[in-house]
């Protein structure tokens, strides 16, 4: 695991070596961001930057050592981002922050999300999805 400086300073390994990193995939950003918060709940902050004129939305999660960013210009990302907001809001108020409480909150948000989906004629109560491990 070397510091591949030859590739130009910015393109470092995701997070651990410090420096700003844009994550290409929203889901990966969400995963990493949530993990970062769980590992340093006291220092991590989550930021949303919106520029209407440029149609740009940038997300950042950092504990001032590791910095993760994601940028988008697509409406379709808003739904996932809304859930991420819910996750952070809830976990930040929670009495204790660890993987268990985080998982519980993630499950709660998932559940609420499912409930908002308009049931089709043949839908069973989350029968198809089941409990994925």
């Amino acid at each position, binding site marked *: 695991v070397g510091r591949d400086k030859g590739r130009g300073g910015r393109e470092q390994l995701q997070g651990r070596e410090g420096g700003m990193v844009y994550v290409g995939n929203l889901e990966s950003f969400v995963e990493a961001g949530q993990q970062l918060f769980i590992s340093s709940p006291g220092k*991590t*902050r989550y930021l949303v930057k919106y520029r209407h004129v440029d149609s740009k939305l940038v997300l950042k999660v950092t504990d001032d050592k590791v910095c993760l960013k994601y940028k988008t210009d697509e409406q379709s990302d808003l739904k996932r981002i809304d859930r991420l907001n819910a996750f952070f*809001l809830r976990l930040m108020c929670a009495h204790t*922050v660890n993987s268990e409480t985080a998982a519980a909150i993630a499950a709660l948000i998932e559940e609420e999300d499912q409930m908002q989906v308009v049931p089709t004629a043949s839908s069973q109560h989350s029968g198809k999805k089941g409990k994925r491990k």
Partner: protein
Amino acid sequence: EEMGRLSNDAFLAGLDKHFANVRSAGSLFITFKRYVATPGKFGVPKSDQSEPMCLVRAKLGSKAISTLVMEKDVTRFQGSLGTMMKGNMDSLKQVEKKKKERKAKTAAV
């Protein structure tokens, strides 16, 4: 009244104004952080609330507002915030599903 620490509702009202103003220019920053009240300088607790809260800040240019959200208010706050964000962030592009699949196919080639 000075801009700054507001109630949840006042904050949401202020954020709505920020969203209206950002349409013409600028960057709107919304920050979330865990806030745990620490005892004051001489060990005297600052307030009755020792529970963790979520500090939410919103800044547009030099205008900064903030609020503290408690666990009991989080569902309501998050709901309002979500509606506001989805409603106001409308300059983001709608990518049609067809275009997306075509994009994915060309990317995969």
